[in-house]
């Protein structure tokens, strides 16, 4: 088995723009242009770029949510899982936390009831919560707690790669820090790789070992975080860095 758990080569993606005038029909617009990169086992790769540049579309292509694309996406032995940006919409509001966490195990159908409960309880402790939360509904939890539950949910599938789409941008700064530490811990202890999508260069710099910069659907520059931050080559990267240093 190779050490790469995700290889994306020459990926183009499109979407149908239906916002045109009545009768014009829909136009097929290209979102991603010739995107190629690899993610190795246990790596944390950052993907930065401004809003609307195609970061989330890339994530959706990798996960198979967006189907209108060409090019090649090769997964490792297991499917990637995802942590969503909005921790309020990504947990089923009508179910309890315990039910939500148990669901992936029920779908797989390998484990029996007591084993499932045990695993759920292990997982919730791993993300820093306790069994008391299992009976609650997502509506009763704070944003940070929800994001922890989302992480636990992604871990339930025992993935090698987790795609985190702006996982901390909806949280306040102290909670952001806790969640980032949790992700780092999971990376070190379990060897899970992350594709960390963010518009916030500071956050990316604090946890990623490698950074890709995306502009208008193209990856304009990629390299180790040192390279990107110390000696950016592409003018867009320089512009992004300047914007961060200014505030």
């Amino acid at each position: 088995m190779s050490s790469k758990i995700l290889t994306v080569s020459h990926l183009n993606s499109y979407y149908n723009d239906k916002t045109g005038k009545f009768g014009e029909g829909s136009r097929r617009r290209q979102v991603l242009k010739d995107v190629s990169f690899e993610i190795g086992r246990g790596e944390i790769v950052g993907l930065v770029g401004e809003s609307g540049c195609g970061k989330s579309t890339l994530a959706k292509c990798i996960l198979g949510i967006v189907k209108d694309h060409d090019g090649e996406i090769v997964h490792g032995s297991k499917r990637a899982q995802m942590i969503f940006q909005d921790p309020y919409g990504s947990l089923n509001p009508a179910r309890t936390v315990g039910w939500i966490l148990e669901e992936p195990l029920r779908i797989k159908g390998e484990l029996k009831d007591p084993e499932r409960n045990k695993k759920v309880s292990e997982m919730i402790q791993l993300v820093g919560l306790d069994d008391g939360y299992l009976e609650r509904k997502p509506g009763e939890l704070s944003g940070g707690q929800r994001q922890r539950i989302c992480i636990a949910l992604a871990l339930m599938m025992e993935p090698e790669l987790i795609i985190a789409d702006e996982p901390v941008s909806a949280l306040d700064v102290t909670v952001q820090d806790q969640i980032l530490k949790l992700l780092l811990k999971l990376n070190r202890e379990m060897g899970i790789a992350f594709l960390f999508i963010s518009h916030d260069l500071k956050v990316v710099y604090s946890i990623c070992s490698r950074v890709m910069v995306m502009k208008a659907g193209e990856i304009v520059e990629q390299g180790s975080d040192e390279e990107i931050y110390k000696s950016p080559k592409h003018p867009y990267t320089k512009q992004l860095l300047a914007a961060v240093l200014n505030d």
Partner: protein
Amino acid sequence: MKKRFMKNRRLFIGAVITGIMVLLAVAGVFFTPYDPNAMDTSAKLAGISLKHLMGCDNFGRDILSRILSGLGTTMLVALGTVFIGVFFGTIIGAFTGYYGGIPDEVLMRFNDAVLAFPSLLLALVFISVMGAGKLNVTIALGILFIPSYARIMRGEFLRCKNLDYVRSARLMGASDIRIMFVHILPNTVQVMLSTIAIGFNNAVLAEAGMSYLGIGVQPPDSSLGRMLSEAQSYLFIRPGYAVCTGTAIVLLILGFAMLSEGLEKNA
């Protein structure tokens, strides 16, 4: 939970009225002061007295007994109607809303076609094909109610299908059926409950209307609508007949309407 229930006055009053009506209907199955169909020629159109608390109708049948047994019939027809409507409406709504595309268009246009007919007229067609009777009325009304439920449920599934928790369920490998009925359905309960309550009221009125026209529940069975239509002929001689029957219908609907409004508020 209990506090919230007491605070929501509509919900509370609605639940009390509905509870009493259900109790009366259940009681009517086992016990009525007189046999609801027994005629007493000496008591034709008798007024309100201790012997007959609500008086007697034109055949000398005790009105209270007939209301008690008619309440059960009316409720059963209404519940059956709502059940058929909600059950099939939810399934159709789930599939059309979740999958969209051409099947959605076809089913929804068919839906619009059914909705475009006046419902009573369509019920008349069903009844003239299938024949009158309690069961047929329930089925006819139930089928008529399917399109409107399907429409409401379709909207709910459409709203939910692109939410992140549905996506995450898909990533876990949940089947479409599982996503529809295990993940999304519980999130539509609030909307479903209030439409059930509104639908129940419409069903009571529709059954009353059909029985009033003589195509609903057949004599000698009692139903509130049928009794109201009979009472019409004696409105000036014995107004108590129409008033008592009408009050029963009003209370039944009022209770359910308040219950539904209360549930919506609690959502």
